């Protein structure tokens, strides 16, 4: 089985964020990028499927700016992906989820694949558009919030669970599909040191922007556009309690909660 897992670099949870001078987007300068959240779950699921289905291969694919995109592809290789494809995205082309879906769909049109896994949404903009758009473009069924995916080789069927309001839904889908993974249900593995070293030397297949652009034809107007980017205002209203002992702190806290915040009588 040929499994394609689509990933995207997002700012590391510990990196400091700030807006660009125009206040329209994140300033990428000095940001540490990572493979994170839903995408990590997607890579883990791809590897679990590969391990359960000998002979399967996992290929990580990403469309985005260099060098951060190559970095997350290397992270996927270090985790155990067999190959990586970097679809170039020039800085002057406005980032857009639909464009990303079109670029990857154009690439998939030239590749063999049985299953595409994506994160349910990106860890940064949380747009959640890519998986559905890609499924539409490659004419494959699509589901979101997928967990515990298995493959029945004899019936050529994928079965999985989805968390839905108040419970879980069991579903199955025959043949090719685009499935968007729920976050943090599968305890993503840590890359092993020798694999990290190997991934640094591995070759990443690069698809030039000219190739992608040629397949896409006219780009049209981006479907989404970022008009403003602001960080949450620092929170105010915090009250520091002066205390000498934990008992005193608790007593003062309870009084404040009762009398000022009126959380309880």
């Amino acid at each position, binding site marked *: 089985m040929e499994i394609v897992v689509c990933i995207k670099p997002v700012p590391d949870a510990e990196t400091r964020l700030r807006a660009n001078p125009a206040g329209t987007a994140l300033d990428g300068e000095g940001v540490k990028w990572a493979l994170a959240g839903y995408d990590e779950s997607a890579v883990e699921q791809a590897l679990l499927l590969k391990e359960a289905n000998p002979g399967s291969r996992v290929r990580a694919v990403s469309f985005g700016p260099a060098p951060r995109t190559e970095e997350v592809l290397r992270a996927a290789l270090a985790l155990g992906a067999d190959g990586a494809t970097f679809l170039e995205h020039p800085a002057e082309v406005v980032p857009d989820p639909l464009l990303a879906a079109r670029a990857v769909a154009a690439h998939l049109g030239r590749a063999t694949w049985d299953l595409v896994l994506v994160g349910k949404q990106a860890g940064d903009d949380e747009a959640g558009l890519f998986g559905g758009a890609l499924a539409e473009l490659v004419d494959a069924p699509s589901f979101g919030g997928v967990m515990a995916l298995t493959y029945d080789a004899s019936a050529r069927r994928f079965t999985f669970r989805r968390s839905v309001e108040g419970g879980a839904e069991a579903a199955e889908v025959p043949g090719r599909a685009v499935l968007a993974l729920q976050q943090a249900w599968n305890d993503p593995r840590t*890359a092993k*040191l020798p694999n*990290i*070293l190997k991934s*640094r030397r591995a070759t990443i297949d690069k698809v030039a922007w000219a190739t992608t652009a040629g397949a896409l034809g006219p780009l049209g107007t981006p479907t989404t556009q970022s008009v403003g980017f602001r960080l949450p205002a620092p929170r105010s209203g915090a009250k*520091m309690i002066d205390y000498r002992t934990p008992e005193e702190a608790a007593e003062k806290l309870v009084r404040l909660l009762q009398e000022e915040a009126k959380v309880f009588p």
Partner: protein
Amino acid sequence: MVDFSLTEEQTSLQEMARKFARSEMLPRAAECDKNSRFPEEVYRKAWELGLMNLNVPSDFGGSGLSLLDQVLIVEELARACAGMTTSILANCLALEPILIGASPEQKQRLLAPFCASFHLASFCLTEPAGGSDAGALTTRARRDGDAYVLDGEKCFITNAPHASLYTVFATVDPALRHRGITAFVVPRSAEGLSTGKDEDKMGHRASATSTVRFEGVRVPVDDRLGAEGDGFSIAMRTLDQTRTPIGAIALGIAQAALGYAGEYALQRHTFGKPIAEHQAIQLKIADMAQAVHASRLLVWHAAWLIDHGRKGTLESSIAKCFASDAAMRVADEAIQIFGGYGYMRDYPVEKLLRDAKLTQIYEGSNEIQRIVIAREQLKGAA
């Protein structure tokens, strides 16, 4: 030209080690310290991820890292828990004599199991009556046909209660002093080998330490490393390799102390402002930062020299000695900044002081390091 930038490969090793340290080691550090618990689950995971046996070449299935790569990893691990780091690194120390003194057949036979599955090894040099004076060791190795018979006792042996293999230094003739010392490998299953009680230590309490006794232990000639009398040189060359990572453990402790102290100083208020705004605290932080920074440069430089084929005896001794003395000072000041809280076991800084202390003592006490430094320095002056 001097280039201090890390390669992308090194940055990813460092990040990986940091992630492991934070997710696996740090959450267990206080509990293992308190209960003197040997967290085998952490060591197994470290092995699985390739964080053990860092010095074993990839030909034998090890990670085969340069010393600079190793110290980057060790600093990250030691920031979370120096005791666990000592236990993780003990394999490097115990296997180094094999890398240095073993025949190709022995290397294949002895190293492969460590890379194929989780095993611990212990380096047995120190004896109850002699630590720094390694030439005076008394554990005897008497030749008997195609074997040696070992008798004696080693002490303060890291991981000894859990090890499956011991690299042992014994003398074929005490009168020969260091020229009689010979290196052997002895499996745990050898008859007559026993380990003592797990020592109750001041720090590094997540690491296990005990005596190892040899009572008529027969060791086949095939398990001798090098020739008779090569042992002293094998031991010294081993320590030349492992001294710098000890500096990196001390550096990790100091970095942790600096980190905790800075964080606390920004958050703790006295006289209406964070204590970080008081100059008394700023001066402490500045001194601590200098000590950490200088330690790191010394450790990196010593590792770089050794990676480039130099012996690095002077520089690795300076790095180990300086970084461990610095770790003591920095941990001490971190406690001072925390005030009364720093003295409490509920806060992480007093452990750092207890952990730092050992780095001044083990793998060559700082007095021995100073003797070495002076000797190397005066060589140049003559």
